């Protein structure tokens, strides 16, 4: 087990939720100050080193130029800084596990740079960092991720449970998270975490996280794994009280459903990139909410596990390794992400939020999901899409 995973494992054994921000600054000094602030938070916290968008797309020349000219970057250019510089950023931060976050469909250089600096944890996935954010063909992303994973000995988290940020039915999020983790394991990664992003219904989310745990237990029994919940990633409440409530509810969800780690959101989310102090506030607020919450043994079964299982099995039944199976699955539409515009996504699936706040299918395309769960009479059109995108924000701002 890696340092990052061991930290999460120890916290879980002691009944504490690990909370983690998003954070990345170009300057080594500012990056270190941010990590120190996270270490000092009244919370069981993990640190984050988020790379800038030039490094994300592999334009390391632009990142170097920006560093030389003192231009502002929206993250830490880990490939462009010397490994000794990054080691100095992390020096003396024993007790704070740090994960590198990047969003790249070609993470090879980033994986190399983080290992050279002594870091052992990162995240992403061949599907989840390609389809929503990149124009790169899925085939290329699978190739790059295969190569990156084969030389990687650390902890790797899937981003598949966060696809599109919002309005993706939980069963598909669970399936994608499991499938990316299976892909990682096939490439030799021995320690993984599986993500799930808070959606529109606490009950449905708890059911989904339990389904994720059940499938991880079945398909990843020979590797170390844990579950990480993401506070809502869609349109965020604009008021400080609404934003705090949604973040705290994510912490309660994580504890209630037995997840080990939480990525928080701050009160600045709807407005701008948060300050370090706002991130520390979000960590401490989430930690307090988690402390007051308790694990709940059972939950309603509305079919999330059955749907997710059908999706995972249909993909893994395809010929070839998990990477080839993922490619074939998207080509055939066995996996089809609603509202995803990438050319390699079939684009026939649609979903909506029903009267009880749950995400429901409006159309499943060619996915192996029973037509009986599809609500074809659901509202469609621009006005209802806009309302669905803003629903969670409005409810929490009210």
């Amino acid at each position, binding site marked *: 087990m890696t340092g990052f995973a061991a930290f999460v494992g120890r916290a879980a054994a002691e009944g504490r939720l690990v909370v983690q921000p998003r954070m990345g600054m170009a300057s080594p000094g500012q990056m270190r100050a941010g990590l120190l602030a996270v270490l000092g938070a009244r919370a069981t916290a993990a640190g984050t080193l988020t790379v800038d968008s030039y490094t994300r797309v592999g334009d390391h020349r632009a990142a170097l130029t920006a560093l030389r000219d003192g231009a502002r970057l929206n993250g830490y250019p880990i490939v462009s800084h010397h490994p000794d510089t990054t080691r100095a950023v992390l020096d003396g931060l024993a007790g704070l596990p740090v994960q590198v976050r990047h969003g790249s469909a070609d993470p090879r250089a980033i994986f190399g740079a983080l290992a050279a600096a002594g870091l052992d944890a990162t995240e992403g996935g061949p599907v989840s960092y390609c389809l*929503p954010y*990149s*124009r790169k063909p899925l085939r290329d992303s699978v190739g790059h991720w295969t190569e990156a994973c084969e030389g990687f000995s650390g902890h790797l988290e899937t981003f598949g449970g966060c696809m599109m940020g919002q309005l993706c039915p939980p069963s598909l999020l669970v399936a994608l998270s499991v499938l990316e983790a299976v892909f990682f394991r096939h490439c030799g990664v021995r320690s993984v975490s599986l993500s799930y992003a808070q959606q529109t219904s606490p009950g449905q989310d708890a059911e989904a996280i339990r389904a994720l745990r059940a499938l991880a237990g079945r398909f990843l029994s020979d590797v170390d794994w844990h579950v990480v919940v993401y506070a809502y990633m869609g349109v965020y409440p604009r008021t400080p009280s609404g934003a705090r409530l949604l973040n705290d509810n994510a912490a309660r969800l994580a504890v209630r459903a037995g997840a080990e780690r939480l990525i928080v959101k701050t009160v600045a989310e709807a407005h701008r990139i948060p300050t370090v102090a706002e991130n520390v506030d979000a960590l401490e607020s989430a930690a307090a909410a988690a402390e007051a919450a308790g694990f709940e043994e059972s939950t309603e079964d509305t079919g999330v596990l059955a749907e997710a299982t059908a999706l995972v099995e249909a993909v893994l039944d395809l010929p070839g390794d998990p990477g080839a199976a993922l490619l074939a699955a998207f080509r055939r539409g066995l996996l089809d992400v609603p509202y995803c*515009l990438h050319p390699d996504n079939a684009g026939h699936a649609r979903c909506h939020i029903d009267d009880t706040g749950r995400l429901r299918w409006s159309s499943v395309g060619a996915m192996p999901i029973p037509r009986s769960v599809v609500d074809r009479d659901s509202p469609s059109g621009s006005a209802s899409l806009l309302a669905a995108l803003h629903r969670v924000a409005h409810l929490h701002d009210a």
Partner: protein
Amino acid sequence: MNNLVLLSGTASDSHTWNLVYLQLLLEETGYRVVNLGACVPPALLADECEAEQPALVVLSTVNGHGYQDGPRALVELRSRPGLAAVPVVIGGKLGIGGPEPDRADALRAAGFAEVFDDDTAITRFREFIASHALCRTAGTAS
């Protein structure tokens, strides 16, 4: 006269919910839409315009780089012989610090038919595409 709109994100912007929403809005107004999605480099945008010959090009971006990325896309379009006259509009969150009227005017001066970058953006955009559709219908009839 066709009723095709080419809808696109900008080169540096990976957001797509804005594009999904605008496609529905345009289709409800009677347009056909080719949606190019996120992170569209100027050359790809121009290639697609040459292939599709749209009646209108709509650029939408929310990552705060629109005031820079917009003109680059427009320069590439106007450099192609067949695309000298196609109307191009841009909208969204174009700067990192909110609407900047001077920079919006600069986009109009650079050749954007309209700029939708403030609190009234969606209302004005709906009016724009409705009137554009009317003009087009009138043009077809005559």
